[in-house]
């Protein structure tokens, strides 16, 4: 799979918890992620939510997404327009949630990119290409790329179950 994305970089500094991304009180109020998107980073970086637009890439300089398991930390960022997050390290659950929902979470040091730079992300080849900088990363395993290509964890699981059901039906017919 050669996923290529044109994105705008957004720099975020410091260790970021999932509480920082979306405060607990909102995630218990809404399942509509567009409502959650208005509140991303509200406590930590007031006003930042309104500045995201479609095809943004977050460049973090420290551990990103530590703490709570809330998948809304990913779904609210996706709803805000973020499609890729590049960080030196991720919180474990947040990292899984990213891939499960089709957000590309990439472990790399991308601090050479400035805020608001337009860059190209080549997921399958493992590089980020700016005007005068290239950052390489280890491409994700095929299994994870396949999951994203299927639309995320749930669609890929359902596809597998339906296939098994069809196969089972098929073999019963033969009998």
């Amino acid at each position, binding site marked *: 799979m050669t996923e290529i994305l044109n994105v705008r970089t957004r720099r975020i500094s410091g260790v970021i918890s999932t509480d920082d991304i979306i405060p*607990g009180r909102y995630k218990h109020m809404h399942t509509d992620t567009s409502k959650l998107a208005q509140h991303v980073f509200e406590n930590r970086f007031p006003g930042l939510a309104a500045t995201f637009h479609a095809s943004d890439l977050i460049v973090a300089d420290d*551990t990103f997404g530590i703490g709570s398991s809330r998948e809304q930390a990913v*779904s609210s960022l996706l709803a805000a327009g973020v499609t890729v997050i590049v960080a030196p390290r991720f919180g474990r*659950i947040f990292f899984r949630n990213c891939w499960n*929902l089709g957000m590309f979470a990439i472990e790399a040091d991308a601090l050479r990119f400035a805020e608001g730079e337009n860059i190209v992300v080549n997921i399958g080849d493992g590089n980020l290409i700016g005007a005068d900088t290239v950052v390489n990363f280890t491409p994700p395993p095929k299994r994870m790329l396949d999951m994203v290509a299927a639309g995320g964890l749930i669609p890929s699981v359902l596809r597998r*179950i339906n296939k098994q059901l069809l196969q089972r039906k098929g073999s019963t017919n033969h009998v």
Partner: protein
Amino acid sequence: MALVNDIITAHSGGEPVTAGQLVTVNVDKVYVQDGNSPTIAKIFGDNGCESVFDKDAVGIFFDHSVITPNIAIANRLKEAHAFAERLGVQVYPQGAGISHVVAMENGWFSPGRIVMGSDSHTCTGGAVQSLALGMGASDIAAAMITGEAWLKVPETVWLNIKGKPLPITKAKDVVLYVLATLGQEKFLYRSVEWMGPWVSELSLDSAATVASLGVELGAKCVFLPDGPGRPHGMRPISPDANGTVLEVDITDLPPMVAKPHSPSNVVPIDEMNHAKIDYVFVGSCTNSRLEDIADVAHQLAGKKVSDRVHCLITPGSKDVYLKAIEKGYISTLTEAGAVVTPPGCGSCLGTQGSIPADGDRILSTMNRNFLGRMGNPEAEIYLASPLVAAHTAVHGRIPSVEDLL
């Protein structure tokens, strides 16, 4: 062999696994908390799913919003209840307690099981050597439907705790000290096996405190050694021949406090210089068990909560609450002027009262003090043990080591 490898091997077809490998495992138990079940219900609804792999192996716990604070959350809870009823799974309604505390009491966690929970503090199950994994809504929904999950086999680190702390220093203090000394990076994505004489002598309540904080270390999962009151089937902890062993010496360690806005921002208690506190909260999946309530009751017996302090105590489960009533702790706490709430997550994350006021300084026994955690970003949260919390409630200031001895 590392415990995590052993458990994953036993749940993925029996071929020995190695760190870094991506595998599909069978899951023994899956549980959901009320804050995430509306999202999970939505995933089921959007995808036309109507059933789970095993009704007895799936539970929904109502713990984050026990006393519903607003219309939006009330409506989400209603959806969650309807969802639980449709699926016919195990339900632990408001008042039953915190999922992780109840899961331990009711045997959801047992040695060698794989248990998934939709809350990051599911790692608590490591106290009895379950591979207990906190995960997001999609992972949980997928496991509820299929009884399976994808996992990356983590590397294991062994954490050898040497020496004994001061008697006033509790399990919470030791984990905060480990975090302060070693940081998160050494534990991130990893399985952590605790060892050494101190951890081997811990009560089950204290072991649960240690295990619950695994996610604060950044770990994928944790395992504690066998000890008093543990179920059968616990395995000895022993590092692989070429395994990474980290050592922390806790000889004469004093109590610790994590300052705003990170559990890693830890100082010895004397460095707090008797800081003034407005609000004390005792509760959460880290410190709400009978032993914790007993520590607070013994401190508050015959004393009064300071007039300047709002002191809120939330037992972790119905069982803890009833035992605390039986032992007279709830009378002691109430007499002293503390407010005892029904069991649940309490005020840990701002999804029910008490929300702090602007400028409030809170001393809490919970596990996280991220900015805005309790519902107000204008408040400061300090984390400490129940013993320290109780002393603070009486005097309105964080005690020194000398005050506590």
